[in-house]
């Protein structure tokens, strides 16, 4: 079983972190993974080959040592088979995969209007990867193309969703903070889980705002716990920052980076409020469920003194929350929540 897993990992590594040249070579060495159906079925059964690239005049295919270009009018539908590595490349859409994704997308993008072509998946993965590296314009170009031309309606819908996400990022850059927050809350109120990336983006953004607001209100009112007017407002920021931090791991747990980050942020909130037991819980959750995350090493280090402090009953020596740069604008009140908002309070 372990050997099997190793093979799986190796095959996944093979696509990841490839240079463009390596990716290009991999394209032509994939074997007969792909399938082509003729526009005239009387020509025969589906043709298995390796599709190297989609050219303006047709698909360049290879079978064994033989390459040829099949004109588009001969082709009824195609399907690109996926290796495990390619699958992982698409699923994770990490910045490290950018060179390989670009090669695959460029090689296949002209095939997206062909029935059955899943080349758009590479395009979408590339767009997500570009988004993560802040190459938003380039990402937007790609998703627009897919939204307009892809043969699969669901993929077109996903491309539209990705463009919505990119559009929101643009809003975050160009609009005033109050407007950004208003729109972010509007997204959460719509509770549209069909665009998880956008939900994760806005909840991550709002979480930081709420946490900053929590810290501000406590700084402004150091005896907030004695103030009947301030305490409910403070409590609201506290609860919202935690709800938003936990959102990824509870509702999009397979978005591992965001989920792990959310748990880490929840730990920061609990550190700030000195709830040691809850810091321990959430760090334990992080390590158990996202052991490979970028926060794991630090989480492990932090747990030791925290647990010791719980056992001894003495306060832990200054495990301070991570300092993030102060946001420039203070948080205004969110708009009144609509009926089914998970974050209303």
């Amino acid at each position, binding site marked *: *079983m372990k050997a*099997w*897993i190793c*093979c*799986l990992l190796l095959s996944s590594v093979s696509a990841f972190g490839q240079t463009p040249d390596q990716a290009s070579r991999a394209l032509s060495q994939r074997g007969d993974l792909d399938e082509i*159906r*003729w526009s005239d*079925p*009387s*020509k*025969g*059964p*589906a043709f298995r080959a390796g599709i190297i690239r989609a050219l303006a005049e047709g698909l360049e295919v290879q079978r064994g040592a033989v390459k040829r270009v099949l004109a588009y009018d001969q082709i*009824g*539908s195609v399907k690109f*088979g*996926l290796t*495990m590595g390619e*699958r*992982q490349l698409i*699923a994770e859409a990490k910045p490290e995969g950018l060179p390989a994704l670009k090669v695959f997308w460029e090689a296949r993008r002209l095939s997206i209007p062909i*029935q*059955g072509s899943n080349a758009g998946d590479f395009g979408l993965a590339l767009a997500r990867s570009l988004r993560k590296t802040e190459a938003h314009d380039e990402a937007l170009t790609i998703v627009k193309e897919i939204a307009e031309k892809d043969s699969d309606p*669901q993929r077109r819908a996903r491309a539209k969703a990705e463009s919505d996400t990119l559009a929101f990022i643009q809003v975050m850059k160009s609009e005033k903070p109050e407007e950004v927050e208003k729109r972010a809350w509007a997204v959460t109120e719509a*509770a549209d889980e069909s665009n998880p990336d956008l939900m994760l983006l806005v909840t991550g953004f709002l979480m930081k705002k709420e946490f900053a607001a929590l810290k501000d209100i406590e700084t*402004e*009112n*150091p*005896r*907030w716990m*004695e*103030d009947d*007017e*301030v305490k409910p407002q403070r409590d609201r920021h506290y*609860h919202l920052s*935690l*709800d938003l931090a*936990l*959102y990824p*791991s*509870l*509702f999009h*747990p*397979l978005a591992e980076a965001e989920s792990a980050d959310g748990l880490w942020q929840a730990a920061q909130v609990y550190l700030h409020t000195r709830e040691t037991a809850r810091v321990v*819980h959430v760090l334990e*959750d992080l390590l*158990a*469920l996202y052991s490979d995350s970028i926060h794991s090493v630090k989480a492990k280090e932090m747990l030791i003194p925290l647990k010791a402090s719980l056992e001894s009953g003495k306060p832990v020596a200054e495990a301070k929350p991570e300092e993030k740069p102060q946001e420039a604008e203070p948080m205004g009140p969110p708009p009144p929540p609509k009926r*089914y908002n*998970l974050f*209303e*309070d």
Partner: protein
Amino acid sequence: MLQPFRIALLSLLFLIAGQGVYSQDVETPAGTPTEMLQAGNAAYLAQNWEEASKLFQSFLDTYEADATFADTVKKVKPLLALAYIRQAKFDLAEKPMAEALADPTVEPAVRSELRFFSGLAAIQAGKHEEARKHLGGVFGDPTVEASRRMEALVLGGMSYVMEENWPGAVTFFTKYGKEIRASSPEAGGRADILHLHALMKAERWDESITLARSIFARLDQVRQVVTYSSLLIELGSKFLEQEQYYKAIAVLRLVPLRADIVQMQKAKLYEADADLQYASASKNIVRQTQIQTSLKEMEKDLENIEKMPQFDSGSRLRFAQAYFSLGRLREASLILDQMVRQMPPDALVESASVNLISGWMSLERWNRAVRAADVYIERLANLPEAKSLSGVLFARAQAYEGQYEYAKAAEGYAEVAKRFPQDELAARARFMEAYNVLQLEQYAEAGRLLESLLKDIPDDHEMWDHAFFWRGMVFYFNQQWETARSHLLDYLERSLKGGAGRGEYVDDAMFRLGYAYFSEAIYDRAIEELERFEKKEPTSEWLAEAQLTLGDSYAALGELEKAQEAYQRIEAAASGFHDEGWMKRGQIFKAQKDLAGMKTLYEAFLTERAESPRVAEALNWLGWVAKQEGKIEDARQIYWEAIRRLGNDKVRPGLEDIFIGLNSLYSGDQKQELQALLQKERSSAESRQQRNYFVRLGWAEAQLIQRAQPDESRVMLARLGEKIEPKETAPRVLVDCAEAQAQIGDNKGAERLFEGLRKWYPRAPERDRAFAGLGFLALAQNNEPRALDMFDRFEKTAVMPKSAPDANGVSIVEAEIGGKVALARARLLESGKKDLALNLYAAIQKSKAIPSRLRAEAFLGAGHLHAQRGQPREALPYFEQVYVLFNRYPELVAKAYWGRGQALEKLGKSDQAREVYSELALRDDLKTTRESLEARQRAITLGGLIEAKVPEGGEIPPAPTQPGGAS
């Protein structure tokens, strides 16, 4: 799970990769056995298996024994076997199949097909070892078509599963899984599901998780997504049972939502349909058959999920349960919250809602609990499964109560009782309704509700004790002492008689009984009851208060020794009452004029209760004692020692009083001596860096000179304020310094100190002055929203008496500062909320506690506002009131005259306006005002000044009458 899974697996048996492999081409003359064969062939090629098998069987029955047909018989047997297999008649196929396989001349391709179907038949018959032998033979034959080989491999693995040979199945799929996937993604997907099932059956849980995750990564290849998802839920449930919650979460989080599964499955069906169309059009029968079988599987899978309306709720509930079991209440509640809001209402969602409400309440998120209850009512209340509506309504009421919204809570409880009168919660709901109405101080209604409840429940009901006792407390809170006592006595008697649930409030009732006597000054009975209580309930939470009241009762009767003893019995653990007892003992000594006793007492207090917040009070009394003894120097020494010892403490209640108390020990010219001493002490405090002491001394000096030199005092406080660190300074000092800074125009300094007071002392009585101060500072900066906000907070936090709310609910603080704030608020609200502004003016006008100047301004304000609104007639009396009642304020009176004149002109009453203007212009006391000059001009314009004999509303006495009547 097993039975449906087996049925699904059995359907795989019918994955026949196609045959088209063999057909006999035999030339025979018509009307002979040949005709039979030809017809059989034709039927076979037309896939009319029944006809083909009938014809071939008939041929064999007739001609098998005939040696001339031996070769033909050999060729027919495999065809017959295959035709029977197509009809799933494995029993009939067995014989021809075995005979064909025994024939060494059978073509290899035919042999492989027969072996394949022999394998299938053997699986069907439960002969798994035999099946694997046949299927292994097919797989091992490299000449066989690749997809058929893979099918044989998968079926071989499946035979282990059918056999329930889990270790065998696991070993098999571990060995061959990758190869199957590489060859055929569809077959690979199928193999994965079988593998996962086998691992779970073999209870190899960790491997199950690993495989489940890797299947998820290639979910697009899996045709049985529903089966896979069901396995995930089963695996997750297993981990929950085993209390391996993280593993449960790791698995359950892979389960897609039902809508996503349906979408995926429909997309696969669509794709498969396109494949099928192509295969048909390209006459690829093999592929056609494969796809048809695959289509059947997917349709079945889709049908299955459509029969599982509770799929999502089942999965999410388990997910939430895992978090709940880990103690992650917030996480569990968030999952349930989404489930309840978004998933179709069913029994699971209903049960989740109930748990959710309870979860939010445990986290004290009362408004979320209310909201969850609302969602339940909206979405689930009409379901037959909604058994918990009464409990949900009850919990909602509790959540309102948790937020101190007593009216809504009472309403909520009432609804429970009304809608579910027979429910076990009904009586409790009725009681809680009454209890919350009591919180609103609606005594009559609370009493009525409790009496009604008591009539309806037997006296052994669990709620009886509560209802009966609290009925008595309603009388008590309403100060119906006699009735309260009678009722509480009744309660005590019934409690003594015993019974289930009785006697929870015995100690409370006993104490209240005594206190009720005390409240009516029936001290002897109070003493009797309180002593009884003290003996019988030595551990009651009310004991300390009872002992204090007992002491007060004895003192009231003049039994001062006994009072002392009672006070002394109050334990130190009840620190507030304990210290109060000390102070009362001091008062007793005072009443007895026992100065020595007082001195001993307070000195002992300082020793025993050194950390008490009332130390300063004790010191104050010691000083007083010394002063009474004529020992001014001793008194001064006591105060100075106290000041030196405690003066640098951050905050100590009453400490500032000691500083002020020094004033009374230095009279006349000695005040200067005191001032010098304060300054000297300040100097040494500064050199010792005793900041708080330094500040207090400066403050004390400013207080000392305040009456004689108010300006100097103000400047002193303001300068002191510059050195203050608000966090470290007593609220009383802070607010005085802040107000001084505001008065001299140091707005920035004032804001710092007011803000400091607001931030660091949210419960200090001086906080309201901080809000007022901040409001006026904001006003000076034209920051109207902030000013209004601060004034609003002043109103909310003020501890001074307030006026009774008017019909519009408007109430103001009845003090000078309250009047100023109300006036400022009214002016700010004039532009946006005119009615509220008028109400505020009216409240100020009515309040006798507010200084008259402010009231005059309120009348003037109301008059101007009416005029602004185009209501000159309404404005008139307000202007008039000012110069009738408030003649001391010439500038206001002048404005009032002018306003009245303008209003009269607006009403077209020029003559009356002229009179008013004339009066204004001719009043000596108003001559210097701008309005007086304007009035003169206006009067002239309207026809000239009128020398009025009797001025309107004026206090000028009439001129003495001359003989003849001339004036």
